[in-house]
């Protein structure tokens, strides 16, 4: 069958392949090349070697600042989102009344786009800070926690669904056995449930990790980096560098390459962890 199928390679591969080439492969390779050049409109590239990479760190502190901000934000978001989502999933798998309704409500914010979310929370947070006579731009910490709350609001429902799926697939007899052995609910949770839903934990951690790390729309709409770019995350900093000033496009592209390498590193680390665990089991 493989032979006859190969005759149809063009039909099966061409549409996706050509688009993949246009939308991803060529831009990717071209982007790598551009990160070593100075350019404004692509037609006037000039090779500058590693200059752009150097400038990403030395022109100003924006990139490093964005890196730390993003890292801190990611850690806090991953922890809070997963803890809260898991707790909600536990509560929603006990068969109480209204489970479906609650699940519907908690999941809904996930479907709303980042730009819209950002403005909704800008109104919310500025309203709350009104009493203190300040607004979200007053202190980068406000922007930070604003983003964390927003992220939780958006992601909890999604992660909760995955945890619910994990919890529902748990074999009932193991839990019953634990109960008969006289395990307290807490022990049961910690020693039976949690180890058994580790695959869900891995998935959720990975999803929150990459989503937090690559966050752009929400950041763009909520604070746009104010005050003084102190709340700009990596993706936003790259965007700002790119489209900010004539002559900085190369630096923006270099930052984008570094950003890509970071995301790739996180992904491979995750893959390695999962593999390792699979081997251990």
């Amino acid at each position: 069958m493989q032979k006859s199928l190969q005759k149809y390679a063009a039909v099966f591969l061409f549409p996706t392949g050509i688009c993949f080439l246009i939308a991803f492969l060529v831009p990717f390779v071209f982007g790598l090349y551009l990160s070593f050049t100075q350019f404004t409109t692509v037609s006037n590239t000039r090779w500058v070697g590693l200059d752009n990479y150097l400038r990403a760190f030395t022109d100003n502190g924006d990139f490093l600042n964005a890196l730390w901000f993003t890292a801190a934000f990611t850690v806090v978001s991953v922890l809070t989102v997963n803890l809260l989502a898991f707790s909600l999933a536990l509560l929603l798998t006990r068969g109480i009344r209204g489970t479906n309704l609650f699940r519907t409500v908690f999941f809904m914010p996930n479907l709303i786009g980042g730009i819209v979310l950002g403005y909704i929370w800008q109104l919310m947070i500025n309203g709350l800070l009104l009493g203190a006579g300040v607004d979200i731009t007053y202190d980068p910490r406000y922007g930070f926690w604003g983003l964390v709350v927003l992220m939780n609001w958006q992601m909890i429902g999604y992660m909760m669904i995955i945890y619910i799926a994990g919890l529902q697939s748990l074999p009932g007899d193991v839990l019953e056995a634990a109960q008969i052995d006289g395990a307290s609910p807490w022990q049961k949770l910690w020693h039976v449930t949690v180890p058994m839903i580790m695959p869900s934990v891995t998935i959720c951690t990975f999803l929150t990790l990459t989503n937090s790390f690559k966050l752009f729309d929400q950041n763009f709409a909520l604070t746009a980096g104010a005050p003084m770019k102190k709340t700009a995350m990596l993706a936003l900093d790259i965007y700002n560098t790119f489209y900010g000033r004539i002559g900085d496009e190369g630096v923006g592209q270099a930052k984008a390459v570094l950003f890509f390498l970071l995301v790739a590193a996180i992904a491979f680390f995750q893959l390695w962890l999962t593999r390792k665990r699979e081997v251990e089991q």
Partner: protein
Amino acid sequence: MKKLTAIAAVFCLLLTAAGCNAADTADPKGDAIYFLNFKPEVAALYDEIASAYREETGVSLRVVTAASGTYEQTLKSEMAKSDAPTLFQINGPLGYLNWKDYCADLSDTQLYQHLKDKSLAVTSEGKVYGIPYVVEGYGIIYNNAIMQKYFRLDGAKVRSAEEINSFSKLREVVEDMTAKKEQLEIDGVFASTSLKPGEDWRWHTHLANIPITYEWEEKGVDLTGAGTKEIQFSFAENFKNIFDLYLDNAVSERKRLGSKQVMDSMAEFALGRCAMVQNGNWAWNDIKEVEGNTIKEEDIRFLPIYTGVEGEENQGLCIGTENFFCINAKASPQDQKRAADFIYWLFSSDTGKRFVTEKLKFIAPFDTFSADESPDDPLAKEVARWINREDAQNIPWNFTLFPSQTFKDHFGGALLQYAQGNLEWDGVVEQVVSDWKSESAGR
């Protein structure tokens, strides 16, 4: 299942058609003059102008408007496209340096022939690359009704606006008004100092123009030379004087200014919640369109922005332009010609001129306009009055020489931090001086 194959076939067709289709729709696009507009506040008007132009001449005009503070950025990405703007604008000599490859020589255009003051144009080596199309002025706009109320109060520091001719007088009056704001039924003397990013140009650009101009004047800097690449910000104290006065006597608290926008300030002014606001004649539309505005046309006046510089008694408004038409030198000669025809039409034909004076409310610097063909809004009339006042020393718009948008954005960010109390004034000054230098370096 046949259906599915059919759908597949349709999609293949559709996708291959996407390329061709783009080419098809490109034709009418290629027909239109592509104008990248700088002024978002008049974006809707340009659409009206485009349809009027099409009606009269059969030539269509496509107007794309960049959002506030993103013109350079938009221009950059649009210029990189195959279907680039034919008509665009620069903000002065510095903008010309950025875009000189794209600026066509306009010396032979009809519009340039009609420019009253040829020295206003952006020129280089005897050729003309940018034609100014609007003269504007800014200062402190005040509500005369509230001021009159104050003048009539017992113990008012002055009895008429003419007596306010220096910063010390202004401060005296403003602080006294703040003390009596209940009697005056206002929430503050000044409207909120809008410092939201992108909404802070009244300070980092317009207000900063005054101390920088004084600095260059004092040092006798040649504005066309390299002398503008570095500044000491020696009149920083004067900037601080007036900026503090704005902050301390305003409707909003200092800490909440980061989400205030220009429109909020103009609304506060229009609703009579404050007596003064720093802005230019273009703001008339904003004031007029605020629902429930209480201000009467005849009560709107301008006051110069005094900052406490010696001999400022004769200072006038800040009058100039940062709007220069340029024609894309890389467009086809035919397109260039059509763009030139359009701008000439806009500033010389009856229809065009009506749009300019009545809708756009531009004070146009061309001799095609007679004295009575000028905008009839109160702020434009005030600007015209100040232009014609012999005793007043109006300040030119030197902010067109400010190094970059990045410089301005940083400056605005620092001002916000200063306003919120998170940055010392010295820090602002330091940052301005060093940013100016580093942002000028690439030039």
